[in-house]
């Protein structure tokens, strides 16, 4: 066995939820094989921090249809960029779904932003592949980051729906200082997560 193969991480058996979000999410590990939906103005930070531990453990991440994602923010959240790929699939529904299905074959986590309209059959087939591969599909309502944005319905039925709304920011003092951290109201709803509930968390903690 070579040194490289000894030291190469392999995909982890579980995708742990970061310690400081565990209480709010109500789970120790993200449910593999399932679909998550992240909404609210802090949806992207939330999604990045949820998948970061898995990538550090060796999981591969595909970011699909989020061309404006800030790699610096992803790195700060702890995402292993050396196992992250950014994909811009074709806009046509069927081809888009086929690209995503091909990605799921090799990638452990897919972070998906804007999606074209795809047929329910394609959605079912894709979710079945995600389940068979024990991957994780994270839908991010990126448009919701804008002030005044209307929440969009997820294009695939999620097993777990999270909404992160920023309640306040620390660090700004009328021209002085800079953004340091924010308090987020995190609402979690899902079949396996018990009754819907809301927690306040600080990010970065």
């Amino acid at each position, binding site marked *: 066995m070579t040194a490289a193969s000894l030291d190469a991480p392999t995909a*982890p058996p579980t995708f742990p939820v970061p310690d400081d979000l565990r209480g709010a999410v109500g789970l120790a590990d993200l449910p593999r094989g399932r679909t998550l939906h992240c909404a609210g103005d802090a949806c992207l930070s939330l999604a990045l921090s949820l998948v970061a531990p898995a990538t550090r453990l060796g999981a591969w991440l595909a970011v699909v249809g989020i061309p404006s994602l800030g790699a*610096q923010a992803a790195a700060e959240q702890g995402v292993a960029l050396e196992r992250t790929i*950014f994909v811009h699939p074709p806009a046509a529904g069927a081809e888009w779904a086929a690209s995503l299905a091909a990605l799921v*074959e090799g990638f452990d986590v897919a972070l998906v932003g804007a999606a074209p309209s795809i047929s329910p059959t394609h959605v079912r087939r894709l979710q079945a592949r995600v389940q068979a591969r024990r991957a994780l599909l994270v839908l991010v309502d990126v448009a919701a980051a804008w*002030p*005044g944005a209307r929440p969009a319905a997820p294009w695939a039925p999620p097993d777990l729906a999270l909404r992160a709304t920023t309640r306040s920011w620390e660090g700004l003092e009328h*021209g002085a200082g800079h953004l340091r951290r924010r308090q987020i109201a995190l609402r979690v709803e899902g079949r396996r997560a018990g009754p819907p509930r809301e927690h306040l968390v600080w990010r970065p903690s």
Partner: protein
Amino acid sequence: MTPAALHAPHVVNGAAPPRLVVIEAPAVRWADALAAVGEWVPLLEPAAEGRCVFAARGPSRAMGGEAEMARRLSALVAAHGPPGATAPVGVGVADSRFAALAAARESLEAGAPVVVPPGGTPAWLAPRTVRLLARCAEVDPEVVGLLERLGLARLGDVAALEESLVAGRFGALGLEMHRLARGDDRHPALAVAPPPVESRREAFDGPLPEAALVVAAAARLADPFLAHFAARGALVTHVVVRCEHESPAGAGVLERAWYLPEGATAAALVERVRWMLRDWRAGGVTALELRAEGARAATGRQLGLWGGRGPGDEAALRAIDRLRATLGDGALRVAAPSGGRDPGEAYALVPLEARGEAAPAPPPWRGAIPRPSPALVGVPGAAIDVRDAAGATVRVSARHEPSAEPARVHIGARDYDVVGWAGPWPVEERWWDPSRRRRRARMQVVVRGDGDAHVAMLVALEDGAWRLAALYA
């Protein structure tokens, strides 16, 4: 703490560096020699065939001082040489692993133990050649050759350099060489908080009679053990494997320390357990424990797209190949450090084909917006305007002062109330070239969105017009 320890040089975090012993004996029956040393040393690390490392404290107390310990252990190991001949044995004692190994190598040639006095490691290393970095610390000989061509022939020359200079020229490797040359340990102390759980233990229902079963148990333990650290951004560098066993002759414990400078992986740990059990003969194993004794922040480890492959990596790379075939070049991108003052400029998304060598994360540029960085950058240009309470566009003077406090941000067809702001921070690029000169002023603004969400954004003023530069999504 004794007064001597209080005055010891190179005190890190209030503790003197541990004294380390390296024994190097290439020509002895190693398993037997190791067992003999193990009688005196509670916890030893079989670093390689013919070499072991351990802390000096326990055995030097038991044997009446470091010099006496070195002499007696040397004789003990030499007794396991080929029949009728005295095998050469090197024993080195120093304040760092690198120096102790270098001392052991010198001892091997000189035929007598080399004990570097406490606190004297930097001075002992200083006149010695930088080639020791290649011989005793596995630094690339070409890099060492480069040091020599730069006129840095001795370790003291490297230690005397400004740390930032070495880092600038050689990056992370430079910092590592600087630490080694100074007589410090290879990695700085753990930069993240020590994880709360440090060990995993499995007690078996009955004694396991076969090494293969114990190795399988090690594989089961290794994953959650390492996951615990990885989820905290830490790599385990020092692991103690404890094997409790029993036989008709009685119960016993086999404990070994392992140093994994690149960070322990499950495969590496399982391999170490297999080595430990290689010479194990009678009885059954009743419990196995993995314990972390040292860790460091996981920084700058570049594998994945830049090589170093495991089975999960192969699957991902195959998927990438298939997608490239259907989507064409340029559809797949990777984040490569580029450096820049705007959050969108620290990394560039470059086509997969165009990625260069693995590079460490870029240091923040002067004038960069402080962390946390926005998650959406270079957002498509919606028309925005930053206005004061009277509804006039906020201007920024040549002295970087706003004409008035921003009160509202106009986006699309709506106004949003400003609840907080900071800046403006100026950027002037290529000021020496009038035709390409860019002047911008940037501000962080928090507005009240729908549902009372406090939406933070980075806005930039250039040529009299505001644009949205980034969203803290």
